[in-house]
């Protein structure tokens, strides 16, 4: 019995080597189940679009890309399972994701151990290369250090906010942004008048807004996820706290404006991506994405991982599939023009620092400024 099984296993192994010899296996780790699974779909669709385009154009030097998708349930503990699977069982050439900062900080040593590049869309500044020098870890989007800096800068210099209030969530995404905002406001010599927390899933912010109102804020900085953003803005309007509102990247997406409806009009946001951006690369990407996925509009993570696949394709075409060589090439030589503009690894191992300041007009996010 055992011998038979062993022979069978060996056969399967040989067969798979024979059949998949000409494919390049890439792994994508993103959330698809549970409450935190909002972004998984965008990530997968963005990455798949790029994979299909590259394969349709003949692959990388004739080899086709195979994208294996894994669910991490937005849970770092699950991410630690599936990253090991991708690296040590499925032997992926490169890993995309996880998309959650705490997951990235937890599992990045595995990429180093397996000498496999890991390209992530998580945005916390806490794993910049200058903080965590992992040669195999790269970021596909602007990090929050950049985005929140730009947000605060706009709030102070353009909107003239001197007594800011902050409403923030309880995930690492929100807290990291809050830390950066505190620091940046302090640089301007401004104290945050009141900072209130709204937990993910809360639907009443009356207490929080009462306190913000009583603190006499002249502007609200929103550092929450989409649903809580909608709750906060609705109730700001309901209790007639008429101050400018400027939100973080989760506020600059349809998921927020759909939920908030008219309340969202006039809200500012710092975005990593805007579907009405007239940049030809963005226009082309939006068209292709909508054509492939039944008219669905892409979002920030979709373009980031789309760019990421092209980056790794460029690197594999240049130096092959050896992990160490890939990482070295990504850090020094890789330079492509993607949806987010020019992509080149900087000292933080970020490929881009692009962000946009936009204002919602009831239908679209009107771009005020695009900062590279």
């Amino acid at each position, binding site marked *: 019995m055992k011998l038979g099984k062993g022979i069978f296993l060996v056969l399967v192994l040989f067969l798979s080597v024979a059949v998949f010899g000409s494919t390049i296996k890439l792994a994508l780790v993103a959330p*698809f*189940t*549970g*409450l935190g*699974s*909002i972004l*998984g*779909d965008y990530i997968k669709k963005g990455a798949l679009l790029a994979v299909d385009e590259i394969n349709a154009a003949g692959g990388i030097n004739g080899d086709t890309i195979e994208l294996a998708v894994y669910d991490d349930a937005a849970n770092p503990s699950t991410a630690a399972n599936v990253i090991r699977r991708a690296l040590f069982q499925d032997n992926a050439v490169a890993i995309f994701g996880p998309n959650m900062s705490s997951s990235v900080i937890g599992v990045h040593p595995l990429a180093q151990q397996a000498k496999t590049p890991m390209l992530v869309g998580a945005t916390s500044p806490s794993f910049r290369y200058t903080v965590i020098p992992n040669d195999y870890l790269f970021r596909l989007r602007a990090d929050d250090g950049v985005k929140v800096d730009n947000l605060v800068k706009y709030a102070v210099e353009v909107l003239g906010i001197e007594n800011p209030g902050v409403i923030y969530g*309880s995930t690492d995404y929100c807290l990291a942004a809050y830390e950066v905002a505190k620091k940046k406001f302090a640089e301007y010599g401004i104290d945050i008048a009141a900072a*209130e*927390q*709204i*937990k993910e*899933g*809360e*639907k*009443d912010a*009356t*207490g*929080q807004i*009462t*306190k913000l109102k*009583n603190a006499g804020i002249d502007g609200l900085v929103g550092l929450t996820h*989409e*649903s809580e953003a*909608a709750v906060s803005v*609705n109730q700001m*309007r*309901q*209790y007639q706290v008429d101050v400018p509102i400027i939100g973080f990247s989760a506020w600059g997406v349809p*998921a927020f404006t*759909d*939920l908030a*409806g*008219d*309340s969202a009009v006039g809200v500012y946001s710092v975005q990593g991506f805007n579907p009405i951006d007239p940049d030809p690369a963005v226009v082309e990407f939006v068209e292709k994405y909508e054509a492939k996925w039944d008219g669905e509009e892409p979002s920030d993570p979709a373009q980031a991982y789309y760019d990421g696949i092209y980056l790794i394709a460029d690197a594999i075409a240049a130096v092959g599939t050896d992990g160490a060589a890939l990482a070295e090439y990504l850090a020094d030589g890789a330079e492509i023009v993607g949806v987010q503009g020019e992509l080149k690894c900087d000292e933080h191992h970020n490929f881009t620092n692009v962000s946009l300041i936009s204002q919602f007009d009831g239908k679209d996010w009107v771009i005020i400024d695009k900062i590279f």
Partner: protein
Amino acid sequence: MLQDILQNIISGASIGATYGLVGLGVVFLWLTISRINFANISSAMLGAYLFITFYGMNLGFFLSFVFSVALIALYGLGLRQFIYEPIRKRGGGRLEFVVATLMLCTFWLNLIIVAYGALPRPFPPVFGKSTDFVSIGSIKISVLYLNIYFVIAILMVLIYILLNKTLIGKSFRAAAQNREAAALMGINVKFTTSLSFMMATCVVGIAGILLAPIYFVSVELGGGAIGVKGFASAVLGGLTNPYGTILGGVCLGVLENFSTLYISSTYKDVISFSVLILVLIIKPSGIFNWKSKRV
């Protein structure tokens, strides 16, 4: 200052009423079979998603509402037929039912994610827009909550009539006390059980449709904090008193807002859960359960 306090009482009571509505589902099931359906909150999510599906087919409010509630009732029957009865027949106890329904909760949550995606959706403004409000002096109440209060009032009257003026109430209580004896007394225990399953899922399904403008049509309706808070309200009502359940939910909501206002928005849930544990230890029969002796 006084205005702030009043405003926070009103909005806290409103969000708390939504907890109470969800808690009603727990009470209806407990009344007859003394079991807790941990997938109780899934009915709310299913109700909301079914409603927007029918509404999206241009069936109009009334038909969409009737169809979704009917399907949810059917689901309640299925729950009894395919989960509760098989477990009972094979000698499974309370914990088996608990775990089965917990898994059911995971199942529905992920089924909805597969079918509709995980992005929260806006609810059609059939109950008014979320920013519409009525002002009483300087206190503002969202129109959405007025609707909820209205429905709760109707439900309370219906429940009162059903439980006190008809035989159903008596058979509920009889079945809860002793299934065999109730059956011997000529009470159709099967029918009573089915009815309580259907009532439990229906009331939560209706709650889901009502709450969707506030919670959005999202998976949070099927796995978020509201489920646990619904249980908490039911416990405050001693698991048997529907009116106490609503009152329990309202108090929980007000407590939460005051915790935010006077202590900390960060620790508000810690505070409300601690109070819940204390209440359970001091008065396990529920503090809003004034009829507990009779039942």
